């Protein structure tokens, strides 16, 4: 029986191969150093160029201030943005401490994200499993999906008030459709052989759904989580922009209303950091849940 049991064993590295491995890893290290140096150089050129542009006087005789290549009043200035960030961190914002604003927005986004994802998965799986129901509801879901959902923001603000509920609702609506369509498609694309095999092995309909269909659709669902979280943030921020008492969206709105371009950029920067951190969390979750997947080829370079 075990005539072939050593099949698939990897070769171990021997002495002459060890040298080759060293050479390759040195080349790889050089490459990664180059990549990092160029990355830093890129951002230095962009931000440095911007800063220089705002200080480069093209006409010294204009009043009240000399004209520069880039007008910092309209387009902001990296040093000014930094100043704004420092002020917010040390003295707080007009609405209160900075961390409170971040916490409020993040809370709205996360709550909207979680509710939207759960609803999206439930509807996606139910409709994906039930062709009849999908045929009946299909046109309405498409119609709802075609509405630019940001336009619902004023409606939610009227109906749910200026508190966090209206922002959560907007985030839910934005997240729901992305997750719904992905899980629906994921359920539809489950390998027919996999289903037939599970049925023959003795799976009940319930086991088929929970142990075959949902794990199989998870690849699709998780892929949608990346976009969904940015949409949840958009929902929270736009909701705050329309009307709020606290939050990063309100900070942007206030800065914009006061012609404070640096303030808008600084708030954008905070949002970007929040989005990147949450993206990293979702990637970690993805790697945890999809451990069984083969590592994509060429994944080593980045």
């Amino acid at each position, binding site marked *: 029986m075990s005539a072939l049991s050593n099949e698939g064993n990897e070769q171990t590295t021997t002495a002459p191969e060890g040298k080759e491995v060293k050479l390759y890893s040195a080349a790889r290290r050089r490459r990664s150093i180059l990549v990092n140096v160029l990355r830093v150089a890129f951002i230095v050129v962009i931000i440095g160029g911007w800063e220089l542009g705002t200080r480069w006087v093209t006409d010294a005789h204009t009043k009240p201030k000399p004209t520069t290549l880039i007008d910092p009043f309209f387009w902001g200035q990296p040093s000014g943005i930094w100043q704004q960030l420092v002020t917010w961190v040390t003295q707080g914002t007009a609405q209160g401490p900075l961390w409170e604003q971040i916490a409020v927005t993040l809370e709205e986004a996360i709550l909207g994200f979680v509710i939207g994802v759960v609803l999206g998965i439930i509807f996606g799986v139910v409709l994906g499993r039930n062709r009849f129901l999908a045929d009946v509801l299909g046109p309405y879901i498409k119609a709802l999906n075609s509405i630019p959902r940001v336009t619902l923001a004023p409606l939610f603000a009227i109906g749910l008030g200026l508190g966090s509920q209206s922002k959560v609702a907007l985030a839910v609506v934005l997240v729901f459709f992305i997750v719904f369509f992905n899980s629906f498609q994921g359920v539809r694309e489950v390998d027919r052989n996999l289903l037939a095999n599970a049925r023959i092995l*003795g799976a009940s309909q319930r086991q088929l759904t929970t142990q075959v269909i949902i*794990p199989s659709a998870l690849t699709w669902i998780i892929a949608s989580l990346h976009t969904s979280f940015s949409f949840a943030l958009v929902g929270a921020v736009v909701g705050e922009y329309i009307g709020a008492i606290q939050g990063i969206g309100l900070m942007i709105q206030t800065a914009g209303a006061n012609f404070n371009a640096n303030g808008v950029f600084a708030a954008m920067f905070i949002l970007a950091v929040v989005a990147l951190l949450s993206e990293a969390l979702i990637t970690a979750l993805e790697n945890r849940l999809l451990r069984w997947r083969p590592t994509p080829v060429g994944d080593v370079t980045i």
Partner: protein
Amino acid sequence: MTMDSSTLTHNVSSLGTSAIELRDVTKRFLTPSGQVYTAIRDITFSIAPGEFCAVVGPTGCGKSTTLGLIAGLERPSEGSVQVMGKPVQGIDPRIGYVFQTDAVLPWRNVLRNVATGPLFRGQPKAESLKRAHEWIARVGLTGFEDRYPHQLSGGMRKRVALAQTFINEPQILLMDEPFSALDVQTRTLMEDELLYLWASLKISVVFVTHDLEEAISLADRVCVLTAGPGTVKGIYSIDLPRPRKVEEIRFDPRFVQLYQQIWEDLREEVMISYERTKQRG
């Protein structure tokens, strides 16, 4: 076409209860364009308990459809399909099915994959895992319990599929071109292992293949189907001695003789099927 009566045994009379019995079975499908497609027509044959029967036929002759009917995945449009003397109604727990393509769950490691059947059927977890360990040892995968399917070779994944099926202790095993995706060496080894398992477990096997050599080396009987819609063209008894060594039996003079005889029958159907594909293409 000439053949002596000892090799051609149409409609084997049912002595006692057959493990599987198909009587005038026809299966039609509705294609997405609304046309009726007949996959198999008036198929009649039976398989005795403990018998190894191979089914050969050209591409698209309804071999997989036939297996689907026996397994209870599909219902016949006409005729009757009986398993152990009872008409098939839904999926029968006494049947095991090994698919052509990988059907192991990619998100479960080898151990959990092999234990899938018992767990689905509500057996206690500890018991299921213990039996899974036994079966993993029997198919020679000890040490690979924690691997995921993508980390295994095609041959190893097939062993997982075999263990996954055998752990349910099927009395009837349906195999749909199970080894067609494997390289020749691995395939021969797997065929030998299959014969060994079959002989020790005394189960009935229906083995669908397009490879006549494989069919003759494994089976007690070979059933040739016509080009689609498939129907039984001839059934041949393979009187080669057992136990057989798949890699050696094909040099047996009797093997060659049988091969020539059955190939005569099969070639016509293959040509018909080939001409059709050419016309369509």
